[in-house]
């Protein structure tokens, strides 16, 4: 959207609505919109996607059930199975929220809406991203019980190692660091460098593989029961999808876990491969994330009401896009150009 695009909304009003009048010297709206699209780089687009997810989180936090004592009890459930040192602060926080549900939840909701708007608003993108990292880590501990990674029951299908930590990871990888942008092989490498970004991706996806093979997740009926439980309260079409997926996996828990672990491992290694192979494995990662998001997470159970976020599937798709290899860039300057000019171009 651009200035002329907006100005193109001007309508002459002499008896007929709809005679569009473009100001002198302007062209059709979409031509300018195209220029705006070019001006925004992939990292900024991903930042905006992250902002959108935070905004959705914020408005979800305004749901009626969040203002009841049930929200505090939901937080308290995150303590189950965790070591005392992790569980005790969760219980304390849950008790606090339970007793001041309205006030605290209003703060939580407003905070997340502000994080979303702050990331979308260019002058505040850095403080908002920094705050989102701190907030996400807090939510990961106090709201998600560290994603259940210490409980032995964490499953990547249900969101382990926790959606909140992926928010933090995305914010760190999409940090608007200057200097290396043009040379980075993919958007996530611009802030932290390609080696660190690839290592973080590897660790995350290998952790998925490891969680998928845990005894609690490879039991014959484990995946079946997990997915079947997602159908409760969902609209008919989504409940049917969940029920059918659960039926397919009945008594095939071990095989499904092995297939999932293999897919996760392949995706983990993908970012180290040459560009075409990397793209193929990223597509695989996105497909797996989408399937998990729909069947294993039911869009974070938003449609059933009472969800606080869209869970990890959507974030994993965004994360994969952050590793999408950039096109090879033709140097804008001849190799004999002065170094300071090349440096300027890189910035």
């Amino acid at each position, binding site marked *: 959207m651009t200035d*002329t695009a907006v100005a193109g909304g001007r309508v002459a009003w002499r008896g007929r609505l709809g005679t569009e009048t473009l100001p002198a010297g302007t062209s059709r709206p979409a031509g300018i*919109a195209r220029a705006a699209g070019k001006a925004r780089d992939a990292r900024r687009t991903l930042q905006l996607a992250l902002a959108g997810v935070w905004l959705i989180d914020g408005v979800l936090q305004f749901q009626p059930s969040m203002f009841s004592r049930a929200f505090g009890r939901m937080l308290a459930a995150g303590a189950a199975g965790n070591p005392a040192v992790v569980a005790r602060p969760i219980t304390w926080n849950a008790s606090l929220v339970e007793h001041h549900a309205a006030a605290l939840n209003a703060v939580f909701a407003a905070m997340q809406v502000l994080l979303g708007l702050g990331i979308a608003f260019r002058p505040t993108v850095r403080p908002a991203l920094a705050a989102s990292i701190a907030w996400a880590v807090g939510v990961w501990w106090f709201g998600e019980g560290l994603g259940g990674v210490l409980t032995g029951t964490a499953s990547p299908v249900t969101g382990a190692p926790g959606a909140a930590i992926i928010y933090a990871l995305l914010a760190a990888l999409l940090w608007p660091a200057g200097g290396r942008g043009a040379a980075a092989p993919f958007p996530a490498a611009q802030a932290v460098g390609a080696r660190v970004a690839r290592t973080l991706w590897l660790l995350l996806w290998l952790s998925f593989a490891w969680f998928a093979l845990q005894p609690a997740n490879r039991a014959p009926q484990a995946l079946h029961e997990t997915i079947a439980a997602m159908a409760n309260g969902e609209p008919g079409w989504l409940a049917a999808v969940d029920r059918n997926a659960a039926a397919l996996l009945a008594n095939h828990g071990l095989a499904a876990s092995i297939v999932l672990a293999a897919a996760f491992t392949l995706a983990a290694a993908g970012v180290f491969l040459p560009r075409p192979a990397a793209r193929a494995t990223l597509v695989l990662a996105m497909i797996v994330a989408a399937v998990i998001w729909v069947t294993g997470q039911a*869009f974070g159970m*938003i449609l059933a009401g009472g969800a606080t976020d869209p869970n990890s599937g959507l974030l994993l798709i965004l994360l994969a896009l952050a590793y999408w290899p950039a096109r090879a860039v033709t140097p804008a300057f001849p190799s004999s150009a002065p170094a300071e000019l090349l440096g300027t171009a890189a910035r």
Partner: protein
Amino acid sequence: MTPAWILDTFASLMLVVAVVSAARVAAARPWRPGSVILDTDIAHLLMAVAMAGMLAVSLRTLPDGAWAAVFCVLTAWFGYRMVRDASVSGVRALAGGHCAPHLVHSAAMLYMFLALAAPAAGAAGMAGMGGSAMQPLQYPTLAFAFGLVLAAFSVQDLDLLSAGRYRLAAAGPALPGAPALAGTGSVAVPRLLRPGTTVGCRIAMGVTMAFMLFVMI
């Protein structure tokens, strides 16, 4: 349930949007021959008044059916304009043109009123939202889809607004009543008439609408 003061806060925000949009329409002096007004301002005014009424019972103006008819017309209008943009500028107009957000806003409003006007919602419709239990919307998948798109448009608008892409240098001469700056050939555009103002209103409405949709799932 969501506390009434939160609903009232959003309703107040919508009243501000309505006042600003009405002021923009008035500033265009539609009673004068040759005057120009923004269809988007009309749409914003109507949406803001409707949403304020949905959020606070005391601000209710028209019956749900009447609002559904209004937003049906607006949806058709912006749909027509988007098709026209697309025929001139190609499919990019669908995502980048200015009509797409308004089309989604209008369609989302239409959906909300239709989903509430169903028999299950009862005669009070969403007017009961502020004072008693909130009515869940029918077809929550649509609410989810609209909420996602509205959030996307809101962050995109905020990004472009903060990038300074809504300055009005080229469009200045078309504005009614804007005084020309001596020797510059451009005009001093009052803040109220700047495109950024209407985009700010649209962001406020997008966030509020997403809030309503998700809260009523």
